């Protein structure tokens, strides 16, 4: 583990491990408590595999009542808890702590109800993202957010991370597709928010929960919207001699009032790696390759394909192919979808970043990345959700070369600083987790961060749920609650008042 400081383990908790294991067995009988080291190995990391840590104990509850009892038990005894869904987080959101119970929700794997008249599905949090689509596709429906880990990632984890995917410019993120949740607070209280109605009542607690990275509560049920599958989808594969032209093409497509179902860009190193791997027949003579997918009724798709083709040609595209069959469309996507493993073939390891930038800053950011690449002596390949400005630079490194992981991380941090400098953000969809935790001050000042931590205090005043994630430095709620009130006189005599 490279230089990551996690909260100091509580020795008193470590000393009581046997007792805690026994007590948890009292709550979750049978196979639901895992405490042998060799069995806990499976849980020591998530999708951010550079970091590993064995938990105190793993517990896999099966009922909401068990989740509630576990959390209440831990809350009363000041034992930390790390929640985990499928463990696909790319930011270390489910990284265990030595003194924390790892609460694994994978046994909550049932779809509870499919409601077609209201077009929603009620699912337990351990159901996979794709599992929801599979449950409704026979009737012609699907669940729109599609993170690339959708085969494995859980819907509860999607809520925790506000997951996106290729289609989110048109169809929204998890937050826009969740109607209701049930969650358990650290004190064991069960709270239900929203439901099948469209406007959740009161404060938007569901909005706060979505993307809160397991720090506020444990989701035990999710109600999501489903949509009718579009009649058809077709894609264009467009190559440009420069990234500026590619970027301008994206801007012009949106300027023409077209919101494609998906719009992805790759730079030259990514194009080459993907082509070598899957032979999607990508043009190798371009600096930027754009995949634009239009979905909807056939007549609409045909109309828009023609529009996008015109825009591409106007922007100097050197290649512009239009998929003539479903097979060809999938071939266009094959390279993009395989971009990560393709990069994995040309480099022993890669480190995937996740900043978002205002799209027009793309050429500047790509140029900056080339400079950084030279400075650090590490290669970088870029895939880019072009419609919404979410960049995924893949930094190439070799973990077996001493110091190279650190170098890759420093390179990544510099890329994210660059994203923030041009008006962007640290993370578009992977979350802060442990990975970007220490970069939060690049985007937020102490007052901003304190106000976020105060929200945490409303949900979990003991900072027991997933501590060490998201916030660079934890402050006690009592300290955060203090106010510094100055003056009693109006300090601004020139404000108009009536």
């Amino acid at each position, binding site marked *: 583990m490279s230089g990551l400081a996690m909260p100091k383990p509580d020795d008193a908790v470590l000393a009581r491990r046997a007792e805690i294991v026994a007590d948890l067995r009292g709550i979750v009988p049978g196979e639901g408590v895992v405490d042998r080291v060799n069995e806990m190995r499976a849980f020591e990391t998530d999708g951010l595999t550079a970091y590993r840590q064995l938990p105190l104990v793993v517990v896999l509850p099966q009922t909401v009542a068990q989740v509630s009892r576990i959390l209440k038990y831990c809350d009363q005894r000041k034992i930390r808890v790390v929640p985990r869904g499928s463990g696909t987080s790319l930011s270390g959101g489910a990284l265990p702590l030595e003194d924390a119970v790892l609460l694994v929700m994978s046994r909550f794997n049932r779809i509870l109800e499919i409601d077609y*008249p209201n077009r929603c599905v009620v699912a337990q949090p351990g159901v996979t993202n794709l599992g929801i689509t599979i449950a409704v596709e026979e009737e012609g*429906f699907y669940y729109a957010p599609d993170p690339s880990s959708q085969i494995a990632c859980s819907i509860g984890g999607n809520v925790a991370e506000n997951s*996106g995917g290729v289609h989110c410019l048109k169809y929204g993120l998890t937050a826009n597709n969740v109607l209701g949740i049930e969650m358990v607070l650290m004190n064991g209280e069960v*709270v239900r928010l929203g439901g*099948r109605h469209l*406007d959740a009542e009161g404060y938007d607690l569901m*909005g706060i929960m979505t993307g809160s990275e397991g720090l506020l509560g444990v989701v035990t049920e999710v109600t999501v919207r489903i949509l009718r599958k579009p009649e058809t989808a077709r894609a264009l594969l467009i190559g440009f001699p420069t990234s500026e032209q590619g970027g301008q093409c994206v801007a012009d497509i949106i300027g023409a009032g077209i*919101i494609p179902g998906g719009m992805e860009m790759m730079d030259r190193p990514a194009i080459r790696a993907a082509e070598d791997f899957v032979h999607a027949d990508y043009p190798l003579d371009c600096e930027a390759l754009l995949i634009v997918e239009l979905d909807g009724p056939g007549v609409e798709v045909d109309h828009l394909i023609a529009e996008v083709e015109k825009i591409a040609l106007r922007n100097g595209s050197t290649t512009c192919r239009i998929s003539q069959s479903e097979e060809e469309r999938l071939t266009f996507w094959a390279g993009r979808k395989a971009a990560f493993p393709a990069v994995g073939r040309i480099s022993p390891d890669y480190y995937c970043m996740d900043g978002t930038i205002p799209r027009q800053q793309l050429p500047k950011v790509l140029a900056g990345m080339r400079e950084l690449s030279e400075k650090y002596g590490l290669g970088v390949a870029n895939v880019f959700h072009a419609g919404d400005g979410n960049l995924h630079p893949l930094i190439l490194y070799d973990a077996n070369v001493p110091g190279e992981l650190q170098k890759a991380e420093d390179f990544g941090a510099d890329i994210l600083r660059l994203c923030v400098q041009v008006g962007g953000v640290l993370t578009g969809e992977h979350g802060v987790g442990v990975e970007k935790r220490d970069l939060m001050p690049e985007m937020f000042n102490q007052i901003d961060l304190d106000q976020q931590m105060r929200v945490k205090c*409303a949900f979990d005043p003991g900072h027991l749920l997933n501590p060490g994630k998201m916030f660079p430095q934890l402050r006690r709620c009592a300290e955060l609650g203090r106010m510094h*009130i100055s003056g009693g006189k109006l300090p601004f005599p020139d404000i108009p008042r009536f």
Partner: protein
Amino acid sequence: MTTFAPATAEDTLATVQWALAEEAPLEIVGHGSKRGIGRPLQCEHTLDLSKLSGVTLYEPAELVLSAKAGTPLAEIEKLLADNRQQLAFEPMDYGPLFGQASGRGTIGGALAANLSGPRRLKAGAARDHILGIHAVSGRGEAFKSGGRVVKNVTGYDLSKAMAGSWGTLAAVTDVTFKVLPAAETETTLAVRGLLDDHAVAAMALALGSSAEVSSAAHLPYPAVAAVADGSLGSDAATLLRVEGFGPSVAYRMETLKSLLKNAGPLEEFAVEPSRKIWRAIRDCEPFAGGSKPLWRVSMAPSAGHEMVMALRMQAAVSAFYDWQGGLVWLSMEAGDPEAGLVRALVEKHGGGHATLVRATPAQRAALSVFQQQAPAQAALSARLKEQFDPKNILNPGRMV
């Protein structure tokens, strides 16, 4: 009674800091177009944010717009329309409901009330489009959240927390919204003469089809007669809006017509009348003006009419439905029995909530304007308020 009207975020901060030091509660207003909603406030002082006005950033190709919170919504909508874009969440205009002129209201107010419109079914509400905020908390601290890009999961989404908080957590000074292209055209299909239950079935069928219906409302008599200058006549109208590019709209209308050919007599409204009808539904025209109490009920789309049917057995009500039946506008008295009845029936029919939108100050002081939440949720909401506004100086009691 003092009204402070700061013209900058810094002066807004100074005002809140002063109020905090004095422990003098502030009523936060923009244009005051929604002042009649919520429990009446008894604040000695008013924080008027309408001078915090102006669009500070608009980049059509990036689909993003930032403005100071007091910027008139009408100004923003005009600017967007000039660029063939829109706030896709179609914020309703509460003015006519309270007998005021239409076209008032600020962008900050749209967020504070989490406004939406008939396109809610497809495009969501203000909460789904807010990207970032700057605000002053009741602690007298200026903070920000979010950013100016669509895809952002950096930190808790405090911008969403402002949506529907009615100014009780912080005084928002700046907002950044996602904007979207306006549809090239739209057409509305009406099925005439349906009873509520058949209308709800027809809407569910349409919404579940590939016609990509963006709005679905049902106007029974007499609500139907009060819409768009009576142009819909007096037969119940079940309305389905299709928006998009010309060829696509034409194709999807054909899909819809063949789907509903046996549902009842069909009628088609071209782009101009269609826009007029949906604006009327958005602004609740059937119940505009007047002082009769008005309730706004949000439920599962399939459940709204069942609740109304049960309600009719025990109270005099007039209703119409938006959001495929999931938004019920109810004209009904606002006494204790009615409040208890509608809320119990909402609960019985699958949950949701009923808000008393229009009533006399005395009625709004006597009843819960917003539906009371389950104890665990209410306690959590109270703790959240405490973390933003520990001295309860921002719109105290408005959401009670």
